[in-house]
């Protein structure tokens, strides 16, 4: 299941990660620590955005990195690492989200505040590239009509289906499908054009 993810050649998956993962296979603790330093912020940001609760988000992040540590042999080093890690984190967070009752989740949404917003990305060799890509993604999605942007966010961060999103936004199902597909294609074109 881990391996059934991603691909594009020349993606953001860089050699430092491949080197670190190679060391991780030998149970190199320092390699694990470097991977954590490189990627824990985006992983935590994603999980926190989905779960909206700091303590639960940290538990999920801990699970994700421990899974990486314990099952690193299952990772296919030929595939880009970051998309794999982010997909793993998103799936874990959505699983956790679905465990909560709707009532409890609503209560938490009313009381939780985002903790510790990071001021900047880490100063690593690839940090600038990652930061730039993040800015592009935000710019491209933000430029979409708010309802279209909301539909994509509900799908990605809430794990809702087309029909659930249509119900949530009170929009026709076909419209929601088009919003999501067109929005993603626009993101794809935007990233290609600027890369």
């Amino acid at each position, binding site marked *: 299941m881990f391996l059934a993810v991603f691909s594009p050649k020349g993606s953001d998956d860089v050699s430092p990660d491949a080197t670190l993962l190679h060391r991780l296979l030998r149970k190199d603790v320092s390699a694990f620590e470097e991977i954590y330093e490189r990627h824990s912020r*985006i992983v935590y940001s994603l999980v926190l955005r989905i779960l909206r609760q700091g303590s639960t988000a940290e538990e999920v992040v801990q699970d994700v990195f421990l899974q990486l540590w314990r099952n690193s042999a299952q990772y296919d080093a030929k595939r880009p690492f970051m998309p794999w890690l982010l997909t793993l984190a998103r799936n874990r967070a959505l699983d956790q989200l679905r465990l909560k009752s709707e009532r409890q989740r609503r209560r938490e949404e009313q009381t939780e505040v985002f903790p510790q917003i990071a001021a900047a990305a880490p100063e690593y060799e690839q940090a600038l590239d990652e930061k730039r890509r993040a800015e592009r993604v935000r710019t491209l999605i933000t430029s979409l009509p708010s309802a279209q942007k909301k539909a994509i966010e509900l799908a990605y961060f809430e794990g809702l289906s087309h029909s659930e999103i249509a119900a949530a936004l009170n929009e026709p199902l076909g419209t929601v499908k088009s919003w999501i597909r067109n929005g993603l294609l626009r993101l794809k074109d935007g990233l290609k054009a600027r890369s």
Partner: protein
Amino acid sequence: MSNHDQFRELIESYALGALDAQERSAFEAHLAGGCAECAKALEEARWLVSQLAYLAPNAEPSDILKGRLLQTVRAEAASDSSLASASRGTAVPWWLWAGVAALLVFSVYSAWNTRRLQEGISDLQRQAEAQRKERAKLEQELLTTKRQAQEAMIWSDPKSVKIKLPAKDPTMPALEAMWHPEMGICVKGWKVPSPGEKRVLQLWLIPKAGKPMPSMTFWPDADGTFTAMVDHPPVGLVDTQALAITEEPMGGSAQPTSAPMWLGGVS
């Protein structure tokens, strides 16, 4: 629009996980059918969807999380290292081989020793059996000697009373008996013919009053010789009128079933 085109429109939403159940099943069936174009497009779509993570506001996990993770990882690494060392340590050390060799030698020795002991026990058992037989033989010889000594004493002691037992059949040899008041009766015969098949000779004590008292049964040997000893006669010497010998069925009789072949008065 072809079927393929319809599925092509579902790829991004499938990668996002937004398809409803029916469309998801249909698309997965299409993928399972081996559409390479959709499979490739799906991989690209998955990469694209992963980029949506950057929409999340930047946040930083606590140092506590990092500390907890590293503590766990270091502990597991140490444990793995210990296991690996233990695994390497499972190579059989020389002393264990030596122990196995010693055990093997000991086992062979034990088997050999067990066999040797079994043979020794068999020898001892054979010796014990031989000794038992020897002892029985000696006891028999001692008994015979004792009987011979008793017989000799009965025949030589002045207190013994000699009793002649002439045969009723004049062709049969006469018998003799000696009765010692304390050591019993001894009857002897020579050239006495054997009784019939399944028949024995039986001695009777005929008291002065009453019926004949049964006593021992006996057979002459191949030469017709016999010696019969009665250690404790049922009747005393002074109360006995005569001795008689009859031929009786095997095992003897309580009362005579035939006429006396030999009969002698006690004087």
